[in-house]
Every structure is written in structure tokens, then in C-alpha cells.
């Protein structure tokens, strides 16, 4: 493939992926408001467009035109940098997520992925581990007690749950023998006894998936682990002092992280884009992407469902759960998987 064609393909893929991700972020917010509304026996957004579908656009315009307040007592360089750090690292990790097989255009095979890195999973872990700084620095630089407490809670919580998150993924790595997300999906092709898909969750990694899900909820600061922004105790936690688009950037980062976590869960435990393929060639090309998107939607719905169902943990419960239950459980899962594979 000539270099200019490669560059063109990369630019187009980046633009499309980023556009789809940002749209997905906006409509995840809409979905959350709609679904939680229905769970609480109310309507959710209905006024802007049919079914309130234009609500995200209205919200975006509102965020852009609100007054961008900078409180006088903040430490300005970090106060401005913190939302940028949060949103940049939240959007970057989508670059290594594969969302389908390679497609062939004009004799060239183009993988449906912005960049295929052979240590893709490690890269995502690295990027998410740096994303903590956005929240922590926002809390510190705001120079506000509630913000500081939120930032402290966030950094302690994320460091604690990152260990369980990493350990829960090692089981999958042992089974597939590769860090490349594409290879991990390829290892999950086929069926058991002709009808149960050979996904890792049906292949002995159920406990691994449970640990991953719990740790991922904590990493993304979602209910029931949303202690860093617990509004009943901390006003709004780390983003108390932020307004307008800076606040919206934290919001975007949170939802983009949710989508990344859902992508990773789909790729590692639910077979990625593997699913029934049938019909004419054009449908066969599109179905893998459809299955991938459908699985991600299911995860996002689960997120919202949990939010509508569970109350928030106390902070000591959160720490005790992470260190005394989740960490030993993921370690045992790792040892059991290693023994089973070595057998």
C-alpha cells in the first residue's frame, strides 16, 4: 500500500471513529435520561425533537454559550489543564479498539481499527491509568474542600480497583496468548456443541468477567461507586468549581470511558464482532459491526439499569469490597485459569 493511501485511510478512519464516539457519547446521555426516567415512572426528555432526540444538541449549545467562570482562588494552569487531560485520555483509547474484520477496498485490505498495535490491551490500560490525573488534579487545583475530597477519593479508588481490573484481564490473556485485541477476538471464534458461542465468558472466565465488571464500574466512577462526585455529601465532588464547557468535558470523559469499558468487555469476554453471519455480501460485511455495536449497547443499558437500581456504597464499604473481596477473587481466578490452561 503506498504511503499516501495509508495516511488517507488513517485520517478517514480517525475522523469517522471520533465522530461516531462523540455522537455515541451524546446519545448515551440521552439514553440514560430516557431509561432512568422510564424506570422512575416519568418521561425523560420529550420536548426537543421527536422523543427528545435533539436534546443532546440543545445541551451542547447550552454548554458552549454558558458563562465560563474561573473562580479567583484556583491554581489556574492545572485548573484549565485538568478537563483537557480527562477528555484527551478518554478519547485516545478508542484508537486501538478493533470493531470488525478487515474490509477490502480497491484491492487493499483495510482493518476496521484506527491502529493495530500488538500490545493494544496494555496501551488501553496505560491510557486509562493516566486518565486519573484529570480527576485528581481538578480536585486539587480547585482549592475547595469538597473538590479536594472528591479528587482524593477518585485517586484512591482508581488505584485500588486498577489492580483487580488488570488481574481480571490476565485470565483472558492466558487463554488467548496475545496482547493484541484482534487476536483475542479471533481466539473466540466457533461454537461449543454447535450452538453455544465460544466466547471467553462461556469458556471458564465468568468470574473474571464479574471482577472486570465490578472494577470497571469503579474505574469509571459510576453508581454504585460514584463516591468522587457523591452529590449528597460533596456538592458535586471534583467538578464543583467547573462550569460551561469545562464541566461538559468531564461529562464527556466519563461517558467516553463508559463506552471504552463496554468495548473492552465485548472484545475480551463476549467475542467482539463474532456473531451469526448470513445474507448477501453487503450484509455479510456489515453484520460484524452490527453485532459489535449491539453488544456495546447491551453493556451501556446495563450501566444505566444498575444506576436506576442500586444506591451508593459507603466509602469504607467500597475500599473493603475492592481489597478484601475483589482482589482475592481475581487472584484466585488467575491461578485457576493458569492451572486449567497448563493441565
Amino acid at each position, binding site marked *: 500500500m503506498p504511503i499516501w493511501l495509508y495516511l488517507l485511510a488513517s485520517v478517514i478512519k480517525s475522523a469517522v471513529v471520533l465522530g461516531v464516539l462523540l455522537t455515541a457519547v451524546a446519545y448515551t446521555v440521552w439514553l440514560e435520561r430516557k431509561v432512568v426516567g422510564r424506570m422512575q415512572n416519568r418521561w425523560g426528555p420529550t420536548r426537543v425533537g421527536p422523543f427528545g432526540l435533539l436534546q443532546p444538541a440543545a445541551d451542547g449549545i447550552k454548554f458552549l454559550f454558558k458563562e465560563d467562570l474561573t473562580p479567583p482562588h484556583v491554581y489556574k494552569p*492545572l485548573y484549565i489543564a485538568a478537563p483537557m487531560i480527562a477528555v484527551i485520555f478518554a478519547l485516545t483509547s478508542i484508537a486501538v479498539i478493533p470493531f470488525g474484520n478487515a474490509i477490502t477496498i480497491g484491492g487493499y485490505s483495510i482493518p476496521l481499527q484506527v491502529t493495530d498495535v*500488538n500490545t493494544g490491551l496494555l496501551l488501553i490500560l*496505560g491510557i486509562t491509568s493516566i486518565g486519573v490525573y484529570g480527576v485528581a488534579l481538578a480536585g*486539587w487545583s480547585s482549592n475547595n474542600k469538597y473538590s479536594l475530597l472528591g479528587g*482524593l477519593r477518585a485517586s484512591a479508588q482508581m488505584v485500588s480497583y*486498577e489492580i483487580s481490573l488488570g488481574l481480571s484481564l490476565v485470565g483472558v490473556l492466558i487463554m488467548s496468548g496475545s496482547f493484541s485485541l484482534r487476536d483475542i477476538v479471533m481466539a473466540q471464534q466457533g461454537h461449543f456443541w454447535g450452538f453455544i458461542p465460544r466466547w471467553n465468558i462461556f469458556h471458564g472466565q465468568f468470574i473474571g468477567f464479574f471482577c472486570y465488571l465490578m472494577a470497571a464500574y469503579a474505574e469509571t466512577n459510576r453508581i454504585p461507586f460514584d463516591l468522587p462526585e457523591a452529590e449528597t455529601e460533596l456538592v458535586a465532588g471534583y467538578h464543583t468549581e467547573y462550569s460551561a464547557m469545562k464541566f461538559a468535558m468531564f461529562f464527556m470523559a466519563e461517558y467516553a470511558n463508559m463506552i471504552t469499558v463496554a468495548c473492552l468487555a465485548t472484545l475480551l469476554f463476549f467475542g467482539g464482532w463474532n456473531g451469526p453471519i448470513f445474507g448477501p455480501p453487503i450484509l455479510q460485511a456489515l453484520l460484524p459491526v452490527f453485532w459489535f455495536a449491539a453488544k456495546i449497547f447491551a453493556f451501556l443499558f446495563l450501566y444505566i439499569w444498575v444506576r436506576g437500581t442500586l444506591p451508593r456504597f459507603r466509602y469504607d464499604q467500597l475500599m473493603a469490597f475492592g481489597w478484601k473481596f475483589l482482589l482475592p477473587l481475581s487472584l484466585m481466578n488467575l491461578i485457576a485459569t493458569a492451572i486449567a490452561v497448563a493441565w
Partner: protein
Amino acid sequence: MLNLHLILFLAFGAVAVAGAVNLLAQTHPINSALSLIAVMAALAGEYLLLGAEFVAAVQVIVYAGAIMVLFVFTIMLLNAGVEERTQGSRVSVLLGIPGMLLGSILVAWVVLRHSGTEAVAVGSLPGDPKTIGQMLFHEFLLPFEITSVLILIAIMGAVVLASKPPSTPAAGLTREAE
């Protein structure tokens, strides 16, 4: 292609050195900590260019993502303020900086010329996860295990030092007497 690698390598090296100098020059602890993160990230870039992608990823995950988060956490928790800036002695400026430069040049010269090692070509280190695993768990198994025991002892020492001193019966008696 090699030239691009070389330019990137030098650029990451410059970022690492600039971050290290900034780490010393800043008076606020949190700025120093953030400079150290920049140094770690630049070093990860260097490892990546040398072909050690696993080490690069671990460098980011462990150093930039976990250890430095704890540094920042501690600074936030203690709410450490701006340090006092002292002028220092003139001797340290006049002799210290040339001495340090001379020392590092000497070390580089000794390492390059007299230790029998050769310069590593860009992208040629055996850095894939499989090779690292082989090295850690076959060739260097004993040093690896000894290091892990050492770290375990350090953790236990930290726990002992941080725990509250046991209440002696004498202390209880004095409290009753009061």
C-alpha cells in the same frame, strides 16, 4: 525511516531532560511531581522506539499511572505549599554544574568505550512480552524471586512502622492514676 526514529529518539530524550531540570527548578511540589510524570512518559517513548514495547507499557502503567498517582495523592493529602527558595552557595553553582556535566560525560565515555557494550540499534531490543517472560522466569528466576522477597519485606516493614505502637500496661496505669 531510521532518521525519523533518530529524530523522535532525540526529541523524547530532550523532553526527559527538560522535565528533569524542570522538576528541580519548580518550587511547588505538585509541579515537580507532574514534571516527573513527563520524564516517565518520555522514557516510555524511548523504550518504545528501542523496540521494548512491553517495558514501555509497564513504565506508563506502573510509574506514571500508579506510583506517581500515589505521589500526587500524598501531596494533595498533606496540602504541601510552595517551598522556600534559597539562593544557595555560589560554590555550588560555580563548581557543581560543571562537575556534574564532567561526571556524566565521564560515565558515558566509560560505558561506551570500556565496558565492551555496543550501542543498541533503534528497534532492536528483544522487548516483546514472550521474551521478557522467558528472561524473568527462566534465565533470571533467582534474582527475580529475591527481589520480590525484598519488596515483601519492605512492605511488611512499612506496615510495622505505620501501625500504632502497642499500648503498654504502664501507659494504662498512668491513665488510671490520672
